[in-house]
Structures are given as structure tokens and as C-alpha cells.
């Protein structure tokens, strides 16, 4: 342990260590010094800010360290910052927007542990670390989802998440066991070079089981059944956390496994059909099942399933080589990865805006069905505008940021010749328009039953305005996202050129050159 701490690689691990230690200190502080929930939340936010600065200072040159357990590259850096931002918004929401009396100090501390798990997922280079990090995320989510444990809906959501989360872990571990058994390793950078002439049947079966496990995490159809129920039952900030953080966590796992460990031709031939079917079903079911929904949280739950479908198309488009399709240019592969990152950023902005508004409205409206929003524009112009803009961004209407993301996905599908997926993406985007416009219609073109204005606190106003500004800014000026995510690529090409410090023992042809 000592030599690990002394090593010059420590900076790459410092953000995770910092957040972990800070979370434990806060737990103890909460127990012994009787902090108020507000103080705890502010301290947690301060810790996240320090970790974010630390992460930003690191360069993104690819490096594999600690016996191949961890990897650091542009993607890891991007996702670390992403998760820290998500956690900050979640903790702020839990403290400021939702009544702090209802929640204790742990409600601000537990998301720190989840964040550590998510950050470790982003830099996992071994199934062992991936599994432990994933469970850290999942177990802390069980508690957060069922946090209002005197409410039946929250407990029900918690139990459903518990059973399906456990099921997904079991599938994942079983899959890893088969991959380990056949290939003799659990390291991603060794696995990618281990397949010469196709993936053995048992390892392919293992990979499919792993994909099932990941499918649960990103709510890919047919492994989505938990999503609407859990979204409805969980506190609003946690629903947003699940919808953005947990989905991004699943996606970085998917990128590392599908494009990294199984990024060769043999591996791609296994996961390509699985993910294609998943993407098609998610696009169709997510967007069509959202149409009859009346409860806003369920509606956003189904729409989140649909968004998984869009992102999956980008992931498929980032593959090195797809079976039966022409070998792509390097630029096309990068566009696929950029599309994933851009989509996640725009999704973060829009989703958090939605859930902050819903959390603000929860105690002020009789319910969160679409018809309860009637005439909201007259009662709370800011909330109505924020919610409307967020929905427009999610629907992908120009000029908001969601359009940039959808356009990139379409571009990726077109460039790679994925015409079936392209057609479905367009169809799903049109179907989505219908249910996103429903709440907007209610807010702006219906008369309110109750005309009392809804007062929004100053911090909430500031944060909502900031999110709106970012949505518009990134929509009009997409380069601003581009500079944010520049270099957010996986280290897979770097690995092949041997630029990594701990390169695998056998040199191998690069992913892009691996044609027979």
C-alpha cells in the first residue's frame, strides 16, 4: 500500500481518494458535531469543487497504472468532471430545492460515495475494479432511491431497484467469470490483444451476459422495466442522478468494454447485433410508451429510455469496424465518441432543469401530472420557461443544445452507413416531439385553476437561469461543448501504438489495422 501512495501516479487517483476521505470525514462529522443538513451539504459541495479543480489540472495523456487496474485518458477525465458536476447538482438540489428538514445529512453524503464509484468506473481497466465500483454505485443508490422510507412509493421503488440491480450484477459477474475462464485475464488492455481470429464461443456468451448487466444500468430495452417505477418513486434529485449519472456510468462501462476490451473485429461481431437490437427497441419503446403517460416523472422515465437508444446509436457508430460495412475513417470513429460525450452534456443540462423544476413544483402543486401544469406560465414564468426550454432541448428542436446532440447522432449513423438505425432515430425524434409538446401546451395554452404566483428562491432562480443560459449557449455555439470535451477519447488507439506506460507484453496490430 505504501509504495502505491508514494508513487508519482497518485495525482491520477487523487480526486477519487479525496472524495472518499471527505465523505467519511463528513459522516463522522455528522455523527459527532451535529452539523445541520445545510452545513453538511455545503461542505460536501466544497469537497467536490476541490476534486474538480484537481481533475482539471491533470493532463489527459493515456496512462495505465497500478498493475493495469486503472486507466487514465481523455474519456476518464471527461467523465470524472461530468460525474462531479452531476453530484454537485444533486447535492445542491437535495439541500436547496427539496425541503432539508425531510432529509438528514446523509442525503448529501451518500451521493459522494456514488460519485466515487462512478469516477472509478470511468477509469477502470479491469473487470475487478469495474465490478467493485459498479456495486459501490448501485448499493448507495438502493439507499438513496428508498430514502423516504416512510412512504410506500419510495420503498417500492427501492425494492424494485434492489431486485433488478442485484439481477444485473449477477448477470455481469457470471459473464465476467466466463470471459476470465476462457481468456485467463480480466484486464481490458490485455483482452483486446487476446482475440486473434475471433472470440471463443464461451467468451462471446460471457460478453453477452455482461451486456445484459450493463443494459440494466443504462435502461436499455428489454432491461428497462425498473426505470419508470423507480423514477417515479425516488426523490427528484435522485431521479435526476439515476437518469444522468447512472446512465453515464453504464455508458463509460460500455465504451471501455465494447470499444476497448472487445473493440477488435471478433468482439465487435458479438456486441454489434446485441446493441443494435437494444438501440432499436429502446428508440421505439422508450418514445412510443412515453406518449400515453400523464405523470411527468414517468414520462421523463420513458423518455430517458428513448435517449439511451439515441446514445447507443452513437456508441455503435464509434466502433472500429462493423461487420458487413466499409471500414471507417479515423475521423468517423472520433465523431461517434464525440457524439456520446456531447449527447451526455446536453442531456445533463436538460434533465437537471426538468427535475429542478419538478422538485420546486412538488410541494406547490397538487400533483405532478401534465394537467396540473395548466397555466403555469402565468403563475411562475421562470419555471414554465425553464421546463419548456428543457423539453424542447430534449426533443432536439433547434437552436437548443439537444439539437446539436441529435444532429451528431444522425451524422454518425449516416457516415457509418447505419441506415436502419438512422431511419429509426428520425422516426423516434418525431414521435418524441408529440409527448414533449404536451406539457408545454398545458403550461402556455391552458388557464390555471389557481392563480396565486409561485415564489422561487433566489439560489434556485440563479441555478435555473444558468442552466437555461448554458442550454441556449451550447445550442447556438456548439464549439463551446467541443472545447469542453476536446480530448475526451478512449485510449484504445494509444494502447495499440504502445504509448501506454504499462503496455501489454505482446505488441499487437492497432485496432484500426486489424484486418485479416
Amino acid at each position: 500500500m505504501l509504495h502505491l501512495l508514494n508513487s508519482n501516479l497518485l495525482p491520477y487517483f487523487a480526486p477519487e481518494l479525496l472524495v472518499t476521505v471527505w465523505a467519511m470525514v463528513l459522516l463522522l462529522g455528522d455523527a459527532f458535531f451535529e452539523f445541520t443538513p445545510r452545513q453538511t451539504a455545503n461542505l460536501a459541495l466544497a469537497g467536490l469543487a476541490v476534486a474538480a479543480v484537481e481533475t482539471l489540472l491533470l493532463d489527459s495523456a493515456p496512462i495505465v497504472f497500478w498493475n493495469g487496474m486503472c486507466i487514465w485518458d481523455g474519456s476518464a477525465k471527461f467523465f470524472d468532471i461530468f460525474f462531479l458536476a452531476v453530484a454537485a447538482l444533486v447535492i445542491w438540489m437535495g439541500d436547496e430545492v427539496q425541503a432539508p428538514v425531510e432529509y438528514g445529512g446523509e442525503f448529501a453524503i451518500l451521493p459522494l460515495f456514488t460519485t466515487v464509484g462512478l469516477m472509478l468506473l470511468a477509469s477502470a481497466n479491469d473487470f475487478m475494479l469495474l465490478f467493485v465500483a459498479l456495486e459501490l454505485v448501485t448499493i448507495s443508490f438502493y439507499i438513496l432511491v428508498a430514502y423516504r422510507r416512510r412512504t410506500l412509493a419510495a420503498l417500492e421503488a427501492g425494492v424494485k431497484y434492489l431486485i433488478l440491480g442485484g439481477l444485473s450484477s449477477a448477470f455481469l459477474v457470471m459473464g465476467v467469470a466466463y470471459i476470465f475462464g476462457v481468456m485467463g485475464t480480466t484486464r481490458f488492455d490485455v483482452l483486446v490483444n487476446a482475440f486473434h481470429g475471433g472470440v471463443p464461443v464461451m467468451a462471446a456468451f460471457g460478453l453477452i451476459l455482461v451486456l445484459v448487466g450493463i443494459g440494466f444500468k443504462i435502461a436499455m430495452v428489454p432491461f428497462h422495466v425498473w426505470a419508470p417505477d423507480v423514477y417515479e418513486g425516488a426523490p427528484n434529485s435522485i431521479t435526476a442522478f439515476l437518469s444522468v449519472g447512472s446512465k453515464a456510468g453504464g455508458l463509460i462501462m460500455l465504451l471501455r468494454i465494447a470499444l476497448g476490451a472487445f473493440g477488435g473485429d471478433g468482439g465487435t461481431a458479438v456486441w454489434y447485433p446485441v446493441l443494435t437490437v437494444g438501440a432499436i427497441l429502446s428508440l421505439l419503446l422508450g418514445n412510443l410508451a412515453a406518449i400515453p403517460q400523464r405523470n411527468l416523472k414517468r414520462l421523463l422515465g420513458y423518455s430517458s429510455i428513448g435517449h439511451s437508444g439515441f446514445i447507443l446509436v452513437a456508441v455503435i457508430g464509434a466502433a472500429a469496424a462493423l461487420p458487413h460495412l466499409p471500414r471507417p475513417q479515423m475521423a468517423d470513429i472520433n465523431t461517434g465518441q464525440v457524439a456520446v460525450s456531447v449527447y451526455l452534456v446536453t442531456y445533463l443540462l436538460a434533465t437537471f432543469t426538468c427535475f429542478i423544476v419538478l422538485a420546486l413544483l412538488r410541494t406547490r402543486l397538487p400533483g405532478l401530472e401534465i394537467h396540473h401544469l395548466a397555466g403555469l406560465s402565468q403563475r411562475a414564468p421562470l419555471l414554465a420557461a425553464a421546463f419548456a426550454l428543457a423539453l424542447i432541448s430534449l426533443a432536439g428542436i433547434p437552436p437548443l443544445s439537444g439539437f446539436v446532440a441529435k444532429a451528431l447522432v444522425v451524422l454518425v449513423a449516416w457516415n457509418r452507413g447505419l441506415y436502419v438505425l438512422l431511419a429509426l432515430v428520425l422516426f423516434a425524434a418525431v414521435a418524441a416531439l408529440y409527448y414533449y409538446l404536451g406539457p408545454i401546451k398545458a403550461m402556455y395554452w391552458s388557464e390555471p385553476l389557481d392563480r396565486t404566483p409561485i415564489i422561487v428562491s433566489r439560489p434556485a432562480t440563479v441555478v435555473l437561469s444558468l442552466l437555461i443560459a448554458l442550454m441556449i449557449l451550447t445550442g447556438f455555439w456548439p464549439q463551446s461543448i467541443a472545447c469542453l470535451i476536446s480530448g475526451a477519447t478512449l485510449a484504445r488507439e494509444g494502447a495499440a501504438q504502445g504509448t501506454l506506460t504499462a503496455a501489454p507484453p505482446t505488441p499487437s496490430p492497432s485496432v484500426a489495422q486489424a484486418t485479416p
Partner: protein
Amino acid sequence: MEITLNHYLAVAAVLFVIGLMGVIMRRNLLIIYMSLEMMLQAANLTFVAFSRFDNLVDGQVFVFFVITVAAAEVAVGLALIVALYRLRQTTSVDALTTLKF
């Protein structure tokens, strides 16, 4: 008869499928939770069998992680089920009907 790797793998696969069937078909949350654990043990058995027959210790290390994590998961999971029992006086999944389409 000599016991080979395939025997262990077959037992593990059967365990896994029994666990999966339990999760799908049983109505009692505790039994479902037991079935989940059975699925994890099936994975552990696979790991140990591969580890033993391939002479790689990594699989056994993985098993320790799985056991530890499963213990943490059970602690949280049982707490949730107990909380649900206190509210509803039952642990049947048929009682989970608040959140419906």
C-alpha cells in the same frame, strides 16, 4: 469417474438458471433475494473452477470481492425489505402495486 472442469461449469450453470427462475417465478421478496444470492454463488463457483483448472489465482481474488460486495448488498437489501414489511406487513411482491402505469 474423474470430475473435470465441465462438471463444475455445468453445476454452476444449473445453479444460475435455478436462481434466475426463482427471481422470476417466486412471489416472496426474501426468496427472490435468496435466489439472487444463488446466482452470485453460481458465478463464484465458475470463477473458482476456472481458477483451479487454469492455475490462475485472479479468479479466487475476484470471488473474495464478490463475497464482500454481496454481504454489503444483503445488508442494505434486507434493511429495505424489513422497512417494507413494517409498512405493509407482507413481503410479497403482489403488494408492490403503488407505482403502476
